[in-house]
């Protein structure tokens, strides 16, 4: 992965405490798993930044290499990968999620 792409991804991740890489937007998620991720964040009343991977194919592929996580959505809190929608759901159900926010 070239440096510019890595820098771009890092900048996106750094723009907020909570950043969700997703397909579509929070208002119009374009994938069931992305929609679930947004629903969980909304349920917790978390404010978050989002990035629509359909807007940038390089980021869409690069993020998978960057985090060694092959699917979208991906949630970052304090610049650390938390996981995809299953991990978010699991942590939401165990109450762990609230502690991170």
């Amino acid at each position, binding site marked *: 992965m070239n440096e510019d792409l890595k820098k771009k991804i890092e900048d996106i991740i750094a723009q907020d405490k909570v950043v969700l890489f997703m397909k579509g937007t929070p208002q119009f998620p374009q994938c*069931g798993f992305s929609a679930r991720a947004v629903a969980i964040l909304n349920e917790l009343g978390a404010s978050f930044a989002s990035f629509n991977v359909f807007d940038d194919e390089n980021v869409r592929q690069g993020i998978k290499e960057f985090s060694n*996580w*092959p*699917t979208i959505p991906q949630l970052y809190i304090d610049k650390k990968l938390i996981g995809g929608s*299953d991990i978010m759901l*699991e*942590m939401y159900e165990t109450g762990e999620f609230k502690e991170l926010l």
Partner: protein
Amino acid sequence: MSPQEMKKRLEAQFPNDKVDVMDLTGGQDHYEVYVKSAQFEGLSRIERHQKVMEIFSEELKTGEVHALSIRTEI
């Protein structure tokens, strides 16, 4: 990828552990897998999931497997 193939791959990585594979849509590309293994000892949730996903990294890259939900237990 067929459920049988997916199960075979998981059993190769997690010999004599409990492994389940569920085709969520019947289209052989949206799966949920469950793995109970001592190999997850000391691994964070995300590390466990990465360990399972790595097995299918090629199929996830090509989109042959579009979605893979994972549940793990130690």
